[in-house]
């Protein structure tokens, strides 16, 4: 962001200034001076200190004259404080003229964008894009999976087969006693229990098979608790002993907890399987038992929820375990801009990891067997497909010869050749920098951009075919592909990543509110709230209308019994989550979702400041700089009985603070209807909640805010707020500055978005299409 204008803020509070000058801010035709009078004034009175183009003058005022104040605010400030050696000598009309000149010539972000247009920069894959690209690259090389059986239930547990005998390492099909779907694996096979009755014998074994949907990216810790013999697979080929994630052949009642941690990518299904044998133990040993539990990222250890389990099989996905250094976040969103030694080393280690993985499994991946005639040729063909996948386009004949055929000839065996090709492919700049020119295959660059913006991944077969066949040239063609791609689960995962970014959920490890002060606000409830928010967002974005307005306005929530009980909502039927209506006017979409409110709180009280900052940046879309002075909030410093609002007003009353807090506070106070855990309340410290305040928009427009709904309605009607949201989404999808795609790009997207009914999915398609074709449009046909 541009540096702060002079630190000497006006002596009078800005609110007072606004009152004094609001009349003067209106352009008064009668007193207006000619347009170039502003330029002349600037040259005469300002250029000496600020430079002819506002670039600053060493020794006088060195910083460039740029920033993000509104014209109104700039004018007020100029009138009160400038020129520095003779303040208040400008007439209102003069102040207006010179400020307008400064604003349009170089001060405003728009002016800066005009003078130094940001451009699309060459950058490498972000860490997320790397992991997903590698996973999908490999998945795309496997033979196509068999389509799922039509009759198989979609979700709700694992397929279970109980056998009335136990032979270590084997199952006797003739002894299968019971088949069904178990919602979870948590059984004690006590004498007389229904679980034991299903097996029908004292020595028995069970097979559970199915898949698990991961909702978050990160390390997932699985625990299989049993005093008996068990094998467990997660994201590995079920039934293959060598691939087992846990292999407990010898039972150990003294240490029944067996743990394994695996890294999973959000939005995908992974195979999960258990082979369990209740073999005879020492007399007096406890009865057989088994429980499957997990601890996902940001979660607590608990049974795997049935809604995430399905009897349908899934294929293992390679999720690289190599840790990469954090992406460059200096622009406010993740970008692959920094090329550091640590990043380079990580790409090397990851390349080795993938080469080893592929090398171990080449026969399985390609369907060959050791000793097959022609195996070497098939492995070489596999390597060529891998390289083409990494390059995101077909290989040229030259590349096929030099980077594959020659490598295989020089290698002592085909496995070594494969390893070397994989290493080359994943260390190649063509893989790591996905937006390089590729004259060899026009269309492939559009495909690569599309796949990254909607999936963070590599093109699939359909997209690659369209690119190769000339079907990715016109905006209509590209938009059609983008629309198709939205139906893929990877698009959901990408949008979920955006929501985490937009709502600042990424860094929330545990919610601040103190369970001792708020009984019932347990870590389990916190985890439920996270699920509730996720279901809410997914429901509106994908299953429902896709209407952004609902995100900010909706009065319904997704709750299970625990959540409904804590927040006083009607309880849903059954164990899981369901859509629940709240009292009219109580809630307004994400603005009032308890997870968010609780994340933006202190352990024992609300934080209007944290909430206000979120609303300012995320909903209203104004930029805020970091505070000039860091002030910690210390409850003990305030007189008892003060409401939170009163404390915040007192703490931020100085002019220094009010520079930003004049904006932050009214927004934050509007959420004072909700306590630190997001529960609706009418009183704070025994006094009625006072959430009403006046908010002044950029253009001086005054808005009365009584609660969250007012904030939502304001943002939805305010063009700059909508554009700010679009810009954030653009950045997340494309990872390039929006303005680099043309000065009017945000306004254009906003107009079509409003015309489409604020359709989020449409917006994604438009952004992806626009970015994919930028700079690559075919030249217009020659004039006749």
């Amino acid at each position, binding site marked *: 962001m541009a540096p702060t204008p002079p630190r000497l803020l006006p002596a009078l509070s800005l609110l007072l200034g606004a009152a004094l000058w609001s009349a003067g801010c209106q352009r008064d035709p009668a007193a207006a001076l000619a347009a170039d009078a502003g330029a002349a004034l600037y040259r005469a009175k300002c250029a000496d200190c600020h430079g002819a183009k506002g670039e600053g003058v060493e020794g006088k005022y060195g910083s460039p004259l740029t920033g993000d104040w509104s014209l109104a605010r700039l004018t007020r400030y100029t009138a009160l404080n400038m020129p520095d050696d003779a303040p208040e000598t400008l007439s209102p009309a003069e102040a207006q003229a010179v400020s307008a000149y400064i604003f349009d010539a170089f001060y405003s972000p728009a002016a800066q964008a005009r003078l130094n247009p940001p*451009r699309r*920069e*060459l*950058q*490498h894959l972000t860490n997320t894009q790397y992991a997903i690209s590698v996973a999908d690259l490999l998945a795309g090389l496997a033979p196509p999976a068999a389509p799922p059986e039509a009759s198989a239930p979609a979700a709700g547990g694992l397929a279970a087969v109980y056998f009335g005998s136990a032979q270590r390492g084997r199952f006797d099909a003739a002894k299968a006693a019971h088949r069904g779907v178990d919602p979870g694996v948590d059984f004690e096979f006590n004498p007389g229990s229904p679980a034991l009755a299903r097996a029908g014998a004292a020595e028995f074994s069970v097979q559970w098979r199915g898949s698990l949907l991961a909702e978050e990216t990160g390390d997932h810790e699985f625990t299989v608790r049993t005093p*008996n*013999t068990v094998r467990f697979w997660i994201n590995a080929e079920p039934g293959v002993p060598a691939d087992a994630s846990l*292999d407990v*052949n*010898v*039972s*150990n*009642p*003294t*240490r029944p907890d067996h743990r394994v941690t695996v890294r999973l990518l959000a939005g995908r299904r992974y195979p999960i399987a258990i082979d369990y044998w209740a*073999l*005879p*133990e*020492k*007399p007096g*040993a406890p009865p057989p038992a088994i429980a499957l539990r997990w601890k996902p990222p940001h979660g607590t250890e608990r049974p795997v929820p049935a809604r995430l389990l399905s009897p349908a099989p899934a294929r293992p996905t390679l999720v690289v375990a190599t840790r990469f250094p954090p992406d460059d976040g200096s622009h406010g969103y993740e970008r692959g*801009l920094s*090329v550091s*030694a640590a990043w*380079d080393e990580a790409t*090397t280690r990851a390349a*080795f990891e993938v*080469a080893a993985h592929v090398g171990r499994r080449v026969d399985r991946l390609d369907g060959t067997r050791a000793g097959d005639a022609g195996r070497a040729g098939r492995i070489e063909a596999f390597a060529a497909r891998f390289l083409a996948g990494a390059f995101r386009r077909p290989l040229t004949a030259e590349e096929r010869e*030099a*980077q594959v055929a020659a490598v295989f000839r*020089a290698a002592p065996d085909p496995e*070594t050749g494969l*390893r*070397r090709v994989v*290493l*080359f492919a994943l*260390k*190649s*700049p*063509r893989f*790591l*920098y996905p937006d*390089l*020119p590729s*004259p060899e295959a026009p269309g492939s660059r559009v495909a690569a951009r599309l796949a990254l913006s909607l999936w963070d991944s590599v093109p699939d077969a359909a997209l690659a075919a369209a690119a190769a066949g000339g079907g990715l040239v016109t905006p209509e063609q590209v938009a059609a592909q983008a629309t198709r791609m939205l139906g893929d689960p990877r698009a959901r995962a990408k949008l979920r990543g955006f929501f985490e970014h937009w709502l600042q959920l990424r860094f929330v490890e545990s919610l601040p509110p103190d369970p001792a002060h708020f009984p019932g606000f347990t870590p389990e409830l916190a985890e439920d709230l996270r699920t509730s928010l996720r279901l809410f967002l997914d429901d509106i974005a994908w299953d429902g209308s896709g209407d952004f307005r609902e995100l900010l306005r909706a009065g319904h929530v997704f709750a299970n019994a625990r959540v409904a009980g804590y927040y006083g909502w009607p309880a849903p039927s059954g164990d899981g989550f369901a859509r629940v209506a709240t009292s009219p006017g109580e809630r307004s979409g994400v603005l009032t979702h308890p997870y968010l409110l609780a994340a933006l709180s202190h352990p024992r009280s609300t934080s209007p400041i944290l909430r206000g900052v979120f609303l300012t940046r995320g909903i209203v879309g104004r930029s805020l700089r970091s505070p000039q002075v860091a002030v910690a909030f210390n409850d003990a410093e305030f007189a008892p009985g003060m409401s939170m609002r009163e404390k915040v007003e007192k703490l931020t009353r100085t002019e220094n603070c009010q520079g930003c807090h004049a904006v932050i506070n009214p927004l934050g106070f509007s959420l004072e209807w909700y306590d630190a855990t997001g529960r609706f309340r009418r009183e704070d410290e025994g006094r009625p909640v006072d959430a009403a305040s006046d908010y002044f928009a950029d253009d001086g427009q005054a808005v009365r805010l009584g609660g969250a709904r007012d904030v939502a309605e304001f943002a939805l009607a305010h063009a700059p707020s909508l554009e700010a949201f679009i810009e954030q989404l653009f950045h997340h999808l494309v990872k390039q500055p929006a303005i680099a795609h043309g000065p009017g790009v945000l306004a254009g997207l906003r107009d079509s978005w409003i015309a489409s009914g604020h359709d989020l999915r449409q917006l994604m398609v438009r952004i992806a299409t626009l970015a994919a074709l930028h700079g690559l449009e075919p030249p217009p046909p020659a004039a006749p």
Partner: protein
Amino acid sequence: MTPILRRSFLRRAGLPAALLPLIHGLPSLGLAAPARPRQRLVIVFSPNGTIPTEFWPDRTGTDFALKRILEPLAPHRDCLLTLRGISNRVRGDGDGHMRGMSCLLTGTELLPGNIQGGGKSIPAGWAGGISIDQEIRNFLQSSPETRTRFGSLEFGVGVQDRADPWTRMSYAGPGQPVAPTSDPYQMFEKLYGGMRDRAHLRSVLDPLQADLAKVRRMVSPEDRRVLEEHETLLRRLERETADRAGPPTLEAGVADQNDNVPRLSRMQVDLMVNCFVNDMTRVATLQYTATLQYTKSVGSARMNWLSISDGHHALSHEPDSDAAAQEKLIRINTWFAGEVRYLADRLAATPEPGGDGSMLDHTLIVWTNELGKGNSHTLDNIPFVLLGGGAGFRMGRALEFDKVPHNRLLLALAHGFGHRIPTFGKADFCSAGPLALG
């Protein structure tokens, strides 16, 4: 031995220290001598008991004659110590073979579990304590002067791919078996895999840089800066991989099968000696198959290279009166002794890096077995033979004890390495203290 076995392509560890390459990530050799002389421990295991009449020397003391089974060790007679009269007194759950194997180095009872042994034995689980090799490993790792990259390495020859108390003798703790690696290529990958990867990387760096140069010409001048930074890093990578010497080479294509056991044995011993020279570890175990002679091949292993087609375990159950079977067992055990001799020869032929004498002077080899005699399943008179030096024992003798618990020998080993613990394994068996072997 046939020439093909001698012609193992591993870098011979007998080279003077100055010629050995600086190997990436490992301490370089030829530096200042360590403050205290190095001590190493190797525990070699062969199964199914021995033939006592052809094993134990008749006389005790320094003036003893080697019988047939120990005859291969004759050249090392002066650093040999035979220990008769040591018993595995651990009882509790599990059958004789399980207890023989999993209590051999741990000296304590097995945990509860569902592994059903022979006869009417109560099912049992893993060993209930740490094994002596891991105990000494932890002790050496706890001090910077004796710490090594791996601490301990567990080698196997023909160990079956099953994890149960019959196939494991090393334990990091109660219920925590340490699996031996029977495949020399897998062991090589563990030791030198990183180096081999870097060799692969070296082969792709040139094409990468060429491609990068091509790509750089295609992009705008502003974007070129990013690719130049990338190129700088690739050049750095090239320097890093160039400085290092390549890894030692292993004879290729020796499959992990029964008939290759003699070659695999030599490859594993060569790898082990190489690890010792590079100080990658100071504790190692070498496990020949497992109790009950389970091997990877279907059915029991056969020592075909000795022209014996009967399974070792089956033979070991033949009565004493079966002279043919006894003769075969003697030859089998003599072959094991020959493998121990090969290990001792290699160590004796290598000067101790940075120290005096040979590596054998600083390495204590312990050759043992899970049973005293196969057909009686006795846990008395476990064949214990010590070879080498460095532990402060007075070698070159045949000793006889009176049914002492083997815990006391394990304790003596610990003390020999400076680890003066009061008990090891079941404390009841340690009341008389470590065996006096010095």
